[in-house]
């Protein structure tokens, strides 16, 4: 960045010192190029289901254009409590234990700011969503990254957490199904981690934005395990399963004391989530299984296709079990992930995201999102085969 050094010196030092997301640099290059097939898009290629869009238009016509309550429309919070109870096995009081937010990103920021005193440590696993480390730092927390490994299927285990946890650790952050690896948690690992959280008296923040998108086994939420509901903030939203990214609608469920604290920040910084998006979400929850089920089947087929294409060209890849990402290893080509992605982009016009955007331990990997049409995936795999043949 250019600009005057005197202004730069007046920035908040935490903000100043955090590098911008590795994805942004890459994005800037891709946007200058034409005819690129992108496997770099972390959002569904499906349109928001038509009945949801139609209901949004109707809400606009009827004049749902005002503030809602800080927590969100009660009708939506009731529908959310019902949905979470049915699908995730935890009961929440819609009056006081559900908060509607501007995407899960806001909910995560609120949760961390509500919990962290300067110097408190936050355990999280890498590779992970690009914002986690920065969001912890913005909240004046100390990020403790636990590396998950491809050879274990990117599992997170109790032993790995124990090795990093200290008496100053206050929060454990989880994200399964995982972006960028596509890993999910086994029930046994989840139970061990739940026991660990109870023993160390940790607050758990679990980002389950991809929960509906699992392909071989159903998702289990840590919040459903004994004793966890009262120490967990459960985060979810409409972006992925309902293809509603631009609506920016997420929510947090948790014990009333924690939701109240998050609400305090939310009311002074955001006031409320978009009323139109909230109306859309109410409609989305009226028939979730139909909409989501069809999309899941389509993602599953693409996952099958991409996994077998990697296998055919001898590219090692942990079989993705959830979300819509594959995270193959490109380490054998002896190129840094960023250079691999850059050359692939320039030589074959296919965009993938270097694994390092998701943490240092993502070196040697690239993220390929299969949230794009099968035709694009087929063509991208042809080009990938040609590209690695030249390396």
């Amino acid at each position, binding site marked *: 960045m250019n600009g005057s050094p005197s202004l730069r010196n007046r920035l908040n030092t935490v903000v100043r010192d955090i590098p911008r997301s590795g994805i942004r640099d890459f994005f800037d290059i891709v946007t200058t190029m034409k005819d690129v097939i992108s496997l770099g898009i972390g959002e569904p290629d499906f349109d928001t289901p038509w009945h949801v869009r139609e209901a949004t238009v109707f809400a606009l016509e009827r004049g749902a254009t005002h503030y809602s309550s800080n927590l969100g429309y009660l009708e939506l919070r009731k529908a959310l409590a019902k949905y979470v109870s049915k699908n995730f096995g935890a009961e929440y009081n819609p009056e006081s234990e559900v908060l509607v937010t501007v995407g899960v990103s806001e909910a995560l920021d609120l949760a961390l700011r509500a919990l962290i005193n300067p110097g408190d440590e936050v355990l999280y696993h890498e590779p992970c969503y690009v914002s986690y480390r920065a969001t912890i730092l913005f909240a004046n927390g100390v990020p403790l990254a636990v590396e998950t490994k491809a050879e274990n299927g990117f599992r997170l285990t109790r032993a790995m957490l124990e090795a990093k946890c200290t008496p100053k650790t206050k929060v454990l952050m989880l994200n399964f199904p995982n972006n960028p690896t596509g890993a999910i948690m086994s029930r046994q690992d989840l139970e061990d981690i739940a026991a660990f959280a109870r023993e160390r008296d940790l607050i758990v923040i679990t980002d389950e934005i991809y929960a509906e998108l699992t392909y071989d086994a159903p998702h289990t939420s840590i919040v459903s395990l004994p004793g966890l509901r009262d120490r967990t903030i459960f985060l979810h939203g409409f972006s992925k399963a309902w293809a509603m990214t631009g609506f920016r609608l997420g929510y947090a469920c948790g014990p009333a004391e924690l939701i109240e604290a998050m609400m305090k920040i939310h009311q002074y910084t955001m006031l409320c989530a978009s009323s139109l998006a909230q109306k859309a979400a109410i409609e989305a929850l009226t028939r979730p299984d139909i909409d989501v089920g069809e999309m899941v089947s389509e993602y599953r087929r693409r996952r099958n296709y991409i996994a077998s294409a990697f296998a055919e060209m001898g590219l090692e890849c942990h079989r993705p079990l959830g979300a819509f990402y594959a995270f193959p290893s490109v380490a054998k080509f002896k190129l840094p992930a960023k250079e691999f992605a850059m050359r692939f982009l320039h030589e074959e016009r296919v*965009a993938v995201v270097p694994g390092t955007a998701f943490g240092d331990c993502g070196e040697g990997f690239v993220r390929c999102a299969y949230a794009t049409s099968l035709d694009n995936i087929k063509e991208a795999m042809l080009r990938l085969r040609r590209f690695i043949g030249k390396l």
Partner: protein
Amino acid sequence: MDELLKLLQTNALESRENLGKLLNLPVAEVNQRIAEYEKRGVIRGYQAVLNEDQLNLDKVTAVIEVKVTPSREGGFNNIAERISRFPEVRSAYLMSGTYDLLLFVEGDNLRQVATFVSERLSPLDGVLSTSTHFMLKTYKRLGVLMHQDSTDERLSISP
């Protein structure tokens, strides 16, 4: 419904190899299952979905509601199967409600369809009355939108 059939309905030209990859099945099994469906008559054929409005064809399509008398033996089937055999009839359905059969009939022009109705369809024993509507424009056929622009509004890279 079998996922294989769904895929074929979306794109019958998908290669057998790709169908195997998508469904995580060996190609031999895909081939065998398709052969069985064809043999059992579940799969009746493979057609292209055309946007005929783009072709400026000299052709009209009429939707005809038909009231009929069911026969003592065979109910509606006898008359419906008889009507379905006319090549002009592209689709035929038995309906609930104020009429019995719904036909999609094609002809080169309005007169040809009118002749079909007055000289072929109406005189049939059992046909009580008909009501003919002409189709003006197609917006969606067989689940496919006819006027969709395929622009991707998404950012080319996102987290």
